[in-house]
């Protein structure tokens, strides 16, 4: 099959990136779809042929990823987020408005083929909620009026209004309590260029690291108490130390840039404002564990961010900071980006590796852990973008300095994405252990002078805290003591008028949509709970449903194959336990809080 030259070049370049051809599959499919609008049988066969796969291997893989489609979408594909942070700020209103204006529903297309509509899960713009994407362009802080203007312009065939220049809420006047370490270059003009990065200490940590012994680097990272920012909070230095030194196998470093946990949008600005910081962090990690190849696995929706990264990587190669014999040290390291295509589960590290190998994003049996058996069966360090972006500061200023910024065992600072009902949603870099109530104040306090009802402290998978539980230190250990988790550091603030049944419903909808379907309890449990909560919130609840919701969640907890099942269960259990009365009030047939949102039919 004859392909456009540009796509052909892109394919050729992709095939050079990986030791196994199949790894190119998902990016090839997505790029081909970008070109042709959808994946036709002919395209699938062509891609299968090029990768030595059978057609089924391609179709079953693409069926897994929600961005990949077998039928053309509209010229402008509107993807409207209704996940928690957006929902709290009118996401459903935007969706309904759009449906009414276009006369189409979820996954439908206007007869002229100009528009198609999809209700989507969190797109990593939670501090700019409500948010939507037109194709790959972000439009944030939407209102029905702004949506009208957008649709109008697009309908007239005029060039679309410019999308947001960068993650909303990332750049703002600094609060005095903020400690800008990894976000310190946010807002500096051209911060993403190598020149500006170098003007602000860029690659000095790398120079220093290349003069150290790998063990010394790992020791420094251990001392820093830098814990994983992806959610689990595992000490980064300890993880690195698990990578075997005496092995013939190649080793890999992966940056987890899949950022899909609802409420989380802090990796996105880290990459768009400071891609070199991440690259530098990966180089240091690679040098420390003896890896010579790195991948940045970035969620498919973050296309513009990937382009920024690609440019930065190209710059780094040109400057001898990537490739062979880096800075004359003898150390070689190659790095490239890898796009996902719509799957929250691919943020789970082992599913991510499956995905990076071109397969359905099913998680793997562990042990063995990736440090021993990871990508292509080889030792692999995988860290979150924020974790890796923190490494240059740790090396440059020392582990002890970094540790001292936080609380015991919780070193450094964190980028907290504060969204929901606050006056100034945004991304704030605060020391580990910063008080949660004060944090809400940093973000301007609860919006519109309302009272606080609850906080989701670390992304939608973390158990919710009642207002009275919120006077606590935001670090991994304090939250664990409070029965919750620091997770991805995504703080979602809920005011007194929020319907908790609705929140539980929306959360379960997300996990049911994202369940990979591998294991029974999560696949069936999330689907069952989703239907139940939909029914319950719509007024069809039965009194026996209330304990059942808790019980079914409990039945998933701790028994699923990967933590996604727990992620669905934990917030639900906490909501039923802490706001049971709200469920009981619903039994009377109406939502006593704000009127129930029309349930736009995503599945």
């Amino acid at each position, binding site marked *: 099959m004859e392909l456009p030259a540009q796509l052909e070049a892109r394919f050729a370049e992709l095939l050079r990136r990986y030791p196994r051809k199949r790894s190119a599959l998902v990016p090839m499919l997505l790029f081909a779809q970008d070109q042709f609008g959808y994946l036709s049988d002919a395209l699938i066969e062509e891609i299968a042929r090029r990768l030595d796969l059978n057609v089924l291997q391609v179709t079953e893989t693409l069926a897994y990823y929600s961005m990949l489609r077998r039928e053309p979408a509209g010229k402008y594909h509107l993807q409207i987020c209704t996940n928690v942070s957006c929902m709290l700020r009118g996401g459903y209103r935007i969706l309904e408005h759009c449906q009414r204006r276009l006369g189409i529903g979820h996954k439908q297309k206007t007869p002229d083929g100009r528009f198609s509509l999809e209700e989507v899960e969190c797109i990593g713009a939670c501090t700019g909620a409500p948010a939507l994407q037109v194709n790959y362009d972000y439009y944030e802080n939407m209102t029905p009026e702004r949506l009208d203007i957008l649709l109008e312009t697009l309908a007239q065939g005029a060039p679309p209004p410019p999308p947001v220049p960068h993650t909303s809420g990332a750049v703002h006047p600094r609060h005095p309590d903020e400690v800008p370490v990894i976000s310190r270059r946010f807002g500096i003009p051209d911060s993403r260029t190598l020149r500006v990065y170098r003007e602000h200490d860029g690659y000095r940590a790398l120079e220093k690291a290349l003069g150290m012994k790998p063990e010394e680097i790992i020791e420094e990272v251990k001392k820093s108490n830098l814990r994983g920012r992806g959610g689990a909070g595992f000490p980064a230095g300890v993880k690195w130390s698990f990578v075997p030194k005496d092995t013939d196998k190649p080793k890999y470093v992966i940056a987890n840039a899949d950022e899909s946990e609802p409420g989380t949008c802090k990796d996105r600005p880290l990459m768009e404002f400071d891609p070199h910081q991440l690259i530098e962090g990966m180089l240091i990690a690679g040098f420390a564990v003896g890896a010579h190849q790195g991948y940045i696995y970035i969620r498919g929706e973050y296309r513009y961010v990937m382009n920024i990264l690609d440019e930065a990587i190209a710059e780094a190669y040109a400057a001898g900071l990537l490739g062979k014999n880096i800075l004359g040290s003898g150390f070689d390291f190659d790095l490239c980006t890898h796009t996902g295509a719509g799957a929250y589960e691919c943020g789970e590290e082992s599913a991510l590796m499956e995905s990076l190998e071109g397969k359905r994003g099913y998680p793997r049996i562990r042990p063995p852990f990736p440090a021993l058996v990871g990508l292509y069966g080889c030792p692999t360090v995988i860290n979150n973008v924020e974790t890796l972006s923190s490494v240059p500061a740790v090396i440059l200023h020392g582990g002890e300095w970094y540790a001292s910024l936080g609380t015991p065992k919780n070193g450094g600072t964190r980028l907290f994405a504060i969204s929901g009902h606050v006056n100034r949603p945004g991304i704030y870099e605060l020391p580990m252990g910063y008080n949660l109530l004060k944090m809400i104040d940093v973000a301007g306090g609860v919006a519109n002078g309302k009272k606080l009802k609850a906080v989701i402290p670390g992304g939608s998978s973390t158990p919710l805290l009642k207002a009275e539980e919120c006077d606590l230190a935001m670090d991994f250990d304090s939250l664990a003591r409070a029965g919750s988790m620091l997770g991805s550091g995504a703080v979602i603030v809920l005011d007194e008028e929020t319907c908790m049944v609705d929140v539980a419903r929306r959360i379960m909808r997300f996990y049911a949509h994202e369940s990979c379907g591998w294991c029974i309890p999560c*696949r069936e449990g999330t689907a069952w709970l989703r239907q139940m909560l939909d029914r319950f919130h719509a007024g069809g609840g039965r009194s026996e449903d209330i304990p059942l919701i808790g019980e079914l969640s409990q039945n998933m907890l701790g*028994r699923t*194959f990967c933590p996604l099942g727990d992620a669905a269960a934990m917030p639900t259990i906490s909501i039923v336990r802490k706001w049971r009365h709200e469920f009981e009030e619903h039994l009377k047939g109406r939502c006593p809080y704000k009127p129930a949102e029309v349930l736009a039919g995503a599945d």
Partner: protein
Amino acid sequence: MAEQKQIRLKIDDREVTVPAGTLVIEVAKRLGIEVPSFCYYPGLSLQAACRMCLVEVEKAPKLQTACTLVAVDGMVVHTNTEPVRKARRDMLEFLLTNHPLDCPVCDKGGECELQDMTFRYGADSSRFVELKVHQPEEKWSELVYFDMPRCILCFRCVRICDEGMDVKALGVGSRGVYSAIIPNRGDHLECEECGMCIDICPVGALTSGTYRYKTRPWEMKYVATPCAHCSNGCKTTLSVRNNQILRANNRDLSGFNREFLCAKGRFGFDFVSHEARLKFPLVRENGAQKPASWEQAVRIVAERLKAIRDRYGPEAIGVLGSNRTTNEENYLLNRFARATLGTNNVDHHRTADYAGLAAALGEEAPRAMLRMEELREAKAILVIGNEPSYQNPLVAWQIRWAVRNGGARLYIINAQPIKLRRRATCFVQADEAEALRHLASGGGQLSAETRHALQELETEIRKESDVAIVFGAELYAKAIGDLVDFGRQLNGQTRYMALGDYANSRGASDMGLLPEFLPGYERVSDAAARERFGRLWGTELSVVAGLDARAMLNEAGEKIKALYVVGSNPVKTFEVPAEKLARLELLVVQEIFPTETTAVADVVLPAASAYEKEGTFTNTAGDLQMLRKAVDLPGVRSDFDILRILAHQLARLGLGQPFAARTPEEVLEEIRQHVRGYAVSLANLLAGGAEPVHPVLEADPKAYDVPVGAIFSSRDTLFSSGSLTRYLKMVRSVNEARLSYEELRNAK
């Protein structure tokens, strides 16, 4: 092999010692403790997906999946505590939410693992009141149907097709609760149609086109017997109701094939009840075949055989045996030819040179024979010639198993890029006999490139020990000698398996349906052997050298005046013009179906098929197994009975002795006592087991030779079975049956 470390652990308060690395679920099984499981399947990759096998492990923070948990020293496991029981109940409750619970109409009802588990471990009532995911049943091929709502997504089918079959025709579509098994061609399958996926499905999601909605499992009787088709000897359990075979599988894992059956073994039983079966004798009168009674037909055959022998002498009669009749029948046919008729003109369509292998191995034979079961344990395998994936499906299955689960290295020499090359460590495309000559002596007509490739293969294989060698009909006589010369240079005990075509190809050879050999490869030229069998059979045996099959057919109407054919279709197999056979004074054919040969026969005697009789088969690896009669077809007689009756008639006419043995068991007894290598233990055979036979041919191997063209394979595929092919309706109904061999092999 390195001594394996033993560890001790405790399950449900019982101490047990097992080799390090054993999975807890297997340890429990050893103790007779059942840990329920859906996705776990021995020999396939681990999934940990169904979460049914959760057990409590002391000191572990949460329940663990026994199917992935490796036992370690000192571990303490509980499989029957309340948390464990509750977890099982909860998993079943989740599982049943989207299950249609249509057991009363489901094919699997009565033998469904989900039904069983729900009964044993489940809750009594469902709390699910939401809508179930619904999807209509899909027909994926004539043989495979899919009912999505019943699927529990254990991924067994996907794995068996990929890992087990190396076909990769099944995958998973969509995600989450909408996940569904999908076939490789969108709405249908294009695959090997083995039906393994149907068989391995724990529920009624995948069902068989031959069986669906026909009956219920408890209404059938089960008869385990070797498959009637290829030479591999898979045990198939025939499910029978009202004298009708409704299904074939091997779910009880009773044979060395365990769960394996190919399309022919699983779906190729319907020929038995095909309307074209011969059901009464036919006798040619005034040019046309007319139905006759058994008495008439047998009398005519006896009288005319006697007359021809009297007139032209015994050498004017030829006997052509079968690859599909039992050992007992072949043994009797041999006696019939040599003792009753007095001719050494005995042969059959030889599909592998078993005699050649015996000759090359000599005394070494008993040690150097590779059994079917051993193949899956082999650590290094060399395949020369043949296309095992299509001609010897079980052999290919065993090889894949060895590679997948045992880490075996696979070496292949073949003129064609056969399918197994995908699993090979080293594949050399070359003419097999030339390659062997090269390996044995450095000669051979090969390109420099091929020589180089062979050199590499040789270097690698010389590092191996206990190499298992399987080879096809491409190697015979001297080439097998070369092979064994090469094999003797390798480390450890090299073992061999010759690959033939049909269910009792090996048995036909072992029982002496060869001109120069008596049963057990004793030479006709050997006076002592002649003397022994002569005494046993009550006659002095002729020493006149017999003609082989091709010679007999060439001489039809010339030197050969009468041809007695059992279960063979020489017109097709040997491509002899039918007119040539028409010139015979007498052509008698014992057959189950009309063939090109029965069409020109003077007398056709309708025979029972393998599923309608008792006896034994020897598979290509020398595994002897007993047949069990599953059904009866009125009108037909077993070849055994036909020969007995005929011998009796001939004795009355003064030719030979009547056969004293009335049953196949009695003949088996004679075989056990008098046929070299067949002195097997009866107990195991009777219990349904397989016993190794190992005939020895002590003679000078150099003295053994066969003419070019005497040994050849029919190159059947997964969808053909010699002359039976056209009567396999189910097997022939699939689209793939119409693909050429190349298309099949290259299908992706």
